[in-house]
């Protein structure tokens, strides 16, 4: 490793780090990106402040991590279809991403990670919380760990327990125009315990928003254990909370974290640009 050029400071005891010393509007040389990538693997969530970047520059940075994907449910920007605008307007009541989840786990190959960039944020409020799923798995009893490694779970995009995805999306004024109502409902089965392809560490790969049952079990049979695990996964000790400002950019590792967007800014506007990066099939 060359001498570090970046300053990397953890945000909490669980996960998350703020990185200073990188200008993401410029091409990063390989040594600098290697440090960023290592911080991403070490801290699961990395935060950059005061970045001034175009959608194309955000894409160029995202491509360093892998291939940007096209989100099935929302049309991207005309000039950059891989960039999705997340917008809550002053009159919207509900927000996008308000429940604890990891992104697109209903796809055969869920996102590896997500690059979210803040354009407009409330004066106070609109933070994002993250939870470390390595810690969630590691803190379970040996008996529970053994059981879970034998199980697979079904993940669905339908959000049936909350009245369905369409009902939510058309209620968000800031996003209803881009909503692709014709997109088919997606469902995928993944191991409950995921082995991270880069770190080799095991994470608890479940989330309240998308995981509907264990494979081979009914929803009713699955509910008590799923409820316990989804609650366990977000114990405060496993979390951090990021406060945004215009120009803040966050990259999270979707394979070992959950996140939720705090909806505490009624009457204020929040506009973000999101890029997801295609991942592997979980194993």
């Amino acid at each position, binding site marked *: 490793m060359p001498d570090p050029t970046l300053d990397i*400071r*953890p*945000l*909490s*005891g*669980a996960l998350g780090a703020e990185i200073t010393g990188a200008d993401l509007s410029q091409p990063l040389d390989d040594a600098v990106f290697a440090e960023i990538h290592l911080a991403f693997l070490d801290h699961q969530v990395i935060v950059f402040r005061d970045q001034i970047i175009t959608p194309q520059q955000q894409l160029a940075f995202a491509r360093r991590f892998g291939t940007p994907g096209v989100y099935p449910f929302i049309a991207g920007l005309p000039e950059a279809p891989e960039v999705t605008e997340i917008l809550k307007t002053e009159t919207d009541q509900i927000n996008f991403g*308000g429940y604890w989840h990891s992104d697109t786990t209903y796809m055969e190959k869920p996102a590896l990670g997500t690059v979210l960039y803040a354009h407009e944020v*409330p*004066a*106070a*409020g*609109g*933070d994002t*919380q993250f939870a470390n799923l390595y810690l969630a798995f590691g803190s379970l009893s040996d008996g529970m760990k053994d059981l879970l490694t034998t199980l697979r779970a079904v993940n669905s995009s339908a959000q049936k327990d909350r009245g369905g995805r369409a009902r939510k999306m058309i209620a968000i004024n800031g996003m209803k125009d881009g909503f692709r109502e014709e997109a088919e409902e997606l469902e995928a089965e993944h191991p409950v315990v995921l082995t991270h392809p880069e770190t080799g560490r095991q994470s608890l790969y479940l989330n309240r928003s998308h995981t509907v049952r264990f494979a081979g079990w009914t929803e009713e049979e699955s509910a008590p254990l799923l409820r316990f695990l989804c*609650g366990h996964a977000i114990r*405060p*000790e*496993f979390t951090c*909370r990021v*406060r945004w400002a215009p120009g803040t950019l966050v990259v999270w590792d979707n394979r070992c974290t959950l996140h*939720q967007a*705090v*909806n*505490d*800014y*009624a009457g204020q506007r929040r506009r973000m640009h999101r890029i997801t990066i295609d991942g592997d099939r979980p194993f």
Partner: protein
Amino acid sequence: MAANGIEVQKISGALGAEIHGIDLGGPLSNTEFDAVHQAFLDHQVIFFRDQKITPEQHLSFGRRFGDLDIHPYAAGLDEFPEVLPVIKEAGDTTDVNFGGTWHSDVTFYEKPALGSILYALDVPTHGGDTQFSNQYLAYEALSDGLKATLDGLTAMHNAANAYGRNGRTDKRFDTTKQKSMTVRVGDDDEADAEVEHPVVRTHPETGRKSLFVNHVFTRRFKGWTEEESQPLLKFLYAHAVRPEFTCRFRWRKGSIAFWDNRCVQHYALNDYHGQRREMHRVTVVGDRPV
């Protein structure tokens, strides 16, 4: 910056504000006190940075708000029993820290705390944050039907879960691993003694209603068994701390938090093993909840 030199900045949409331009080391003028008091009522928890105060100064700030409590189970400083040291040493291997679960302070009293003033003397490089949750918002977000039901209910509280035999302190706050604080285990009569509080209380100063149950000290609804009470209580405990009702405060040495225990729950995160954290807490006695 306001005309009086005091600046108040919200830290989340739900509750919490940092106050700048006040030195708690000196006596507060009435104007300063009024500004602090108003911010406390408006934001439910207020934060000060870069303060340097002695235990005496900490106590005099607390006394501006009311009488001070001596904690019945956790030992205070020898010279100042109303100052409760909250310490986790770098060598503590306990998986339970003091205050490491959602609660409001001492609701097993007939007159639970009005508020607590926590001062950071030594903090980890990262970790050891405190989360707060606004119980006005928790109440207001319930359905009209459940609000009406809860308005008529009373809950029983006691110290058994926290400080009784086989309680949190006894079972898990292991004094062989945790040497930095002296926390006593109460005998059965003392820890099991129940007090009753309305499930929805009206704040004596703001007149607003807040949800007043917490999973550490609340045992059951009055007239119901614990088993009957569990489903609804469990729902309320989870509802009370929904992310959109919360804020999270990152401490620095010299930071002070002062929360309104009548309308706030809080949670001290235990995510800093191997690092030391030392705080001083002063607790202001409150009214009987109505």
